[in-house]
């Protein structure tokens, strides 16, 4: 669904998590090539259901995406995923620090023996959109960006998940993660999900 089209529905538009203000804030942190591309909604829990559908729809439109979540207290937060979501055959994190390989320090938990397990870039970040807009970039402590399992989606690691969503996209949790150095993004560590959106770029 691309907004502003003829099928624009006011009632449904009220339930869109992405606002102009948030988009403008995020544009400041996104990679430059994405700043001139149009945004299109790939997935929403209103229409598309659960996590498995999110994976499927992201595979149909590969590229970087923005994940937005709103909890029952109205807190809105999410992540910029530098790579399209895809179920990992072997459970591991993807998204890497290839661009800054020399900066990898002893604090990084990934040994040299497994560089092939992670792909992508360190551009992934977590953010909170409401009540305040805050962006939590990669802290370079470890490379646990995204863990896309069939039954859950986890972002950030090295302690607790920065953001974790269940398979039904009904419940989630957020905690401090070493990967992004973020605090709890939601209203509480365990929260009820009201809506999830995934936006892509065309």
């Amino acid at each position: 669904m691309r907004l502003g089209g003829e099928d624009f529905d006011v009632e449904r538009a009220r339930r869109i998590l992405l606002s102009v203000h948030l988009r403008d804030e995020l544009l400041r942190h996104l990679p430059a090539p994405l700043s001139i591309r149009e945004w299109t909604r790939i997935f929403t829990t209103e229409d598309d259901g659960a996590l498995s559908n999110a994976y499927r729809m992201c595979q149909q439109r590969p590229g970087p995406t923005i994940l937005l979540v709103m909890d029952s207290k109205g807190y809105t937060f999410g992540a910029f995923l530098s790579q399209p979501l895809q179920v990992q055959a072997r459970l591991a994190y993807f998204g890497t620090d290839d661009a800054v390989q020399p900066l990898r320090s002893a604090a990084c938990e990934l040994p040299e023996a497994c560089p092939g397990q992670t792909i992508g870039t360190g551009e992934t970040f977590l953010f909170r959109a409401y009540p305040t807009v805050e962006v939590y970039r990669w802290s370079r402590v470890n490379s646990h960006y995204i863990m896309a399992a069939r039954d859950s989606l986890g972002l950030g690691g090295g302690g607790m998940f920065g953001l974790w969503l269940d398979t039904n996209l009904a419940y989630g949790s957020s905690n401090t993660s070493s990967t992004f150095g973020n605090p709890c993004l939601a209203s509480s560590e365990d929260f009820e999900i009201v809506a999830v959106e995934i936006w892509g770029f065309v």
Partner: protein
Amino acid sequence: MRPPIAMVCTCCRSPSEARMASRLHALEVRASVRRSAVATPLRELREERWKAVAKAGVAKAGPLVAPAFDATKTSERRTELHEINEDGSGGEFNADVSRMRRAALRLIAVRTHLSRLSLTLSRLSLSPSFSALSLSALSFGSLSLTLSRLSLSAWQTKHCTHLRPAVRLPPTGHEARGGGL
């Protein structure tokens, strides 16, 4: 409903630990879903939550009241970026595009020149003595073109790394027909 125990690098330390933790968490959440919303379809559950959020007035301060995203804004921004001022000045993007366009035109001119040269040499190669010369010229032409491409790539890498995904030069007519030198 607590998130799983400390996450580790699953590919090197203990793959089973993260998998186990994730599954345990999922099971825990599913149990919680069953407890809190027994036999409630997910769609209805979400609808109730939407209503609760709206009723609580969270939306008044939250993102729901903010103007919804308008794709035309992005188009406007794109227009701004492409816009060239009357005095010839423009943003960094415009300057880079202009430079790339000039470089591409120069490359096309070089290629055309080399093609004509090759054609001339081919015509001259009617006599066997010119064959070797013609082949050498063609090789030289290809080499020059390769060097031109390399220099353009190097220039792009140096000056336009952030624009490469966004700016893609259309193929020339020659390339579109699948031809080379």
